[in-house]
């Protein structure tokens, strides 16, 4: 059902002003770097200029002697004996025996001003023994590549594998050889994507304070304050509950702020400086060099297709590097790669490879864009070869609710068919195209996530409501939560205040990631509100002297549930709240769970481009995002997610990449050279919200934040071939590459 045609709710589905809007348009909202504290020191980090080097000696004496320096830390200030991911995080926070990438932290200082701290950092002397390095994934997977870490392979990796393979996976079903044999066309190609950064405009920033007694406080811009707490305490050997982490407003995250980078350093420096708070704000080049970009990928895909477009078999082998630690999202890339296709035979193989690059972090549907670039490009190439319509081929092979997914389990409720129908009907597809112009189509998928969720709400004395949630508000979730709670209570949207709280105020919450906030926090908020409603009904029942079961809640009031219950006028939330102190005490509701009923989101994009034949520059003329939201609680913010994901995908497709020199040093660590889309690069981005309600959520919500970054990569490659006849299989498709490809076609 199309959005805005029919709305059975009073508030859900409307577009009120977001509650933090006033703070954000006036500059009053406080982000990670916007806080100061009495006695505060500034921290600065000393970073390796080498991609791979043994740390021979660190001499901090000159730094310590500088007036104003109050503490210097090295790896020696961290506990030993960590294992697994805890060890990975600690090793990434501060190098041990070796610096593993250009920008790897080797020491940190705290001083009375930012400038003194930066001067002191330059006075730390580090002696390095430079080692051979490797940054490209296909080089890193060679048996003779420089070894990042001895014994890095986990139990999944076959004997005799190259030394930098940290994880291996292999899964599938059916007989792919038979499937390829019965196909009319079999194509096999290799596609490559380069690492990109989430590119949030706000650099990482925190203010940490840690005393000798092991009690600490931190203010930090983060997607997940409980994750920061858990990781910092693990890396520093502290007790979890003794560290309280307060999330600031966050200036973008997209996955990159779900983990720690310099946060433990501020705590370690603080403790060493006698408990004085230490503020660390990363520079943009530190962010690009030393936080968590996504992985780069080299992918081989093979598909068998019949003349009528039916896919008979598919095979994918992906190699991905996620930096000097395991964790490249090659598993999720493989799970998503063929997710939109109903297959009887499929085989997936994946390698997670180490390289001398920063430890990768999640980036909006981690892995899915890479896999989509490969598969959706190849499907398009095959459609061209067989003269088939790319949308019809996807419709022909589309998975439906209950179908077996390419990654194994059966799908629950999904809306790919509805999305493709909406694409086919859209007027953008009828827009005429001129010379050097072309149209590309591609689909994308993300599972969405549930995760630990803990929400608390309470009724105030005047009948207004407050909700304490643990998921930082990145995209407008305070508005959506308020809408759902107000709808459930039957009160006005303005009578609900949603607060994002610190770790001491609620049970554990997973971060705002995995497109989970509106789904999981929303579901928990509705449940919690239900508890409060039941208690308010109980209070009314007692006052009326009738059974609890005989009271129901409607339109913001307790009322008798039917004529036999008795003739009592409705008791409003205001009345109940006004006397709650004398009728039993505070009225609140809580809900903790790992909510079930997650709904996945499919999307499809259509892009029209024009290629300048003299420069290879690609201009986006028209862009359409169609995606299944389940139910759009606040349609403006759903549209915002669609448009934002598309813009990041466009940047990834056309310009963004990590460029390393032959010494393994990052060459483009500032926004001038790491080129993200600007306002003049893009047209208006058209959106269609398809709603196939998710039965697992009280209002039908599906997460929407991530799927949107997936289709742009292949859609643009497909449009470029349509416009020029040249197929690019290597991102980014920047002007020099497009120009070279056009020339090759002409030759």
């Amino acid at each position, binding site marked *: 059902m199309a959005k805005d045609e029919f709305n059975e709710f009073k508030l859900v589905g409307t577009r009120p002003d977001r509650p933090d809007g006033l703070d954000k348009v006036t500059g009053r909202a406080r982000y990670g770097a916007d806080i100061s504290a009495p006695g505060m020191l500034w921290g600065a980090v000393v970073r390796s200029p080498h991609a791979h080097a043994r740390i021979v000696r660190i001499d901090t004496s000159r730094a310590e002697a500088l007036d104003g320096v109050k503490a210097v830390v090295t790896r020696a200030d961290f506990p030993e004996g960590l294992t*697994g*991911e805890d060890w990975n995080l600690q090793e990434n926070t501060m190098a041990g025996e070796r610096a593993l990438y250009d920008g790897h932290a080797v020491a940190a200082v705290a001083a009375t001003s930012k400038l003194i701290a930066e001067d002191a950092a330059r006075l730390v002397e580090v002696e390095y023994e430079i080692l051979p390095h490797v940054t490209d994934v296909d080089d890193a997977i060679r048996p003779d590549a420089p070894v990042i870490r001895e014994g890095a392979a*986990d*139990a*999944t*990796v*076959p004997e005799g594998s190259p030394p930098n393979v940290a*994880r*291996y*996976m*292999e*899964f599938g*079903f059916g007989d792919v050889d038979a499937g390829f044999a019965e196909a009319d066309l079999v194509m096999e190609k290799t596609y490559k994507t380069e690492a990109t950064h*989430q590119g949030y405009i706000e650099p990482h920033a925190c203010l940490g304070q840690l005393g000798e007694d092991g009690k600490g406080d931190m203010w930090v811009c983060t997607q997940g304050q409980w994750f920061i707490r858990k990781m910092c305490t693990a890396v520093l050997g502290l007790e979890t509950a003794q560290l309280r982490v307060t999330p600031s407003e966050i200036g973008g995250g*997209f*996955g*990159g702020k*779900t983990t720690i980078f310099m946060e433990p350093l501020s705590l370690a420096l603080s403790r060493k400086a006698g408990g004085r708070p230490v503020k660390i704000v990363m520079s943009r080049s530190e962010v690009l060099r030393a936080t968590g970009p996504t992985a780069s990928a080299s992918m081989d895909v093979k598909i068998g297709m019949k003349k009528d477009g039916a896919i008979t078999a598919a095979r994918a082998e992906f190699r991905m590097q996620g930096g000097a630690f395991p964790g490249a999202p090659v*598993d*999720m890339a493989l*799970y998503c790669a063929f997710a939109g296709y109903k297959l009887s035979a499929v085989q997936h193989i*994946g390698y997670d490879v180490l390289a001398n690059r920063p430890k990768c*972090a*999640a*980036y*909006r*549907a*981690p892995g899915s864009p890479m896999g989509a670039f490969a598969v959706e490009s190849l499907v398009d190439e095959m459609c061209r070869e067989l003269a088939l319509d790319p949308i019809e081929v996807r419709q022909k092979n589309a998975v439906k609710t209950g179908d077996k*997914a390419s*990654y*194994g*389990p*059966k*799908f*629950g409720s999904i809306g790919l068919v509805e999305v493709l129908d909406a694409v086919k009907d859209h007027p953008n597809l009828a827009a005429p195209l001129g010379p050097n112009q072309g149209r590309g189509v591609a689909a994308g998928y*993300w*599972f*969405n*996530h*549930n*995760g630990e969720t803990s929400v608390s709400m309470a009724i105030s004395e005047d009948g207004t409501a407050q909700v304490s949630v643990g998921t930082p508000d990145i995209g407008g979730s305070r508005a959506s939560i308020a809408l759902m709670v107000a709808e459930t209570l039957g009160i006005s949207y303005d009578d609900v205040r949603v607060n994002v709280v610190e770790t001491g105020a609620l049970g554990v919450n*997973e971060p705002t*990631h*995995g*497109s*989970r906030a509106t789904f999981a926090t929303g579901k928990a908020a509705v449940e919690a509100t239900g508890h409060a409603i039941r208690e308010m009904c109980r209070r009314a029942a007692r006052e009326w002297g009738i059974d609890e079961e005989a009271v129901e809640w409607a339109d913001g009031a307790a009322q008798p549930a039917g004529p036999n219950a008795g003739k009592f006028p409705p008791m409003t939330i205001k009345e109940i709240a006004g006397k709650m102190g004398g009728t039993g005490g505070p009225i609140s509701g809580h809900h903790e769970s*790992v909510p*079930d*009923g*997650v709904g996945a989101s499919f999307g499809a994009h259509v892009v029209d481009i024009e290629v300048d034949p003299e420069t290879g520059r690609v201009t986006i003329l028209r862009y359409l995002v169609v995606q299944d939201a389940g139910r759009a609680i606040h349609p403006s913010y759903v549209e915002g997610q669609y448009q934002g994901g598309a813009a990041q995908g466009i940047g990834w497709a056309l310009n963004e990449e990590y460029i390393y020199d032959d010494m393994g040093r990052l060459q483009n660590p500032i926004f001038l050279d790491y080129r993200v889309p600007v306002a003049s690069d893009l047209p208006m981005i058209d959106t269609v919200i398809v709603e196939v309600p998710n039965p*697992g959520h009280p209002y039908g919500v599906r*997460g929407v934040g*991530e799927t949107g970054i997936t289709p742009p990569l292949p859609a643009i490659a497909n449009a470029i071939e349509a416009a020029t006849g040249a197929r690019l299989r290597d991102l980014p498709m920047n002007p020099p590459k497009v120009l070279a490809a056009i020339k090759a076609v002409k030759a």
Partner: protein
Amino acid sequence: MATVKVHLWSGLRRLTDGADVVTVDAATVGEMLDALVTAHPGVGPVIEAGVSVVIDGEMTTSRHTGISPDNEIYLMQRLKGG
């Protein structure tokens, strides 16, 4: 307690003597995971690192979720997001 089939997603095949699908006796997710490790100790570290259990298409991380022979059970890498 009943006999359930568990589909494994990845290079776990090497750790289960080549089996893609393993049969164990279990009434809950927790029992199923423990039984898997007992039958094939090699999978222990991988499961400890974190898995998602998908039952009839629904992901669960709770050890106490009940399972029966009618359920379709998949073990997958721990999924999160960005």
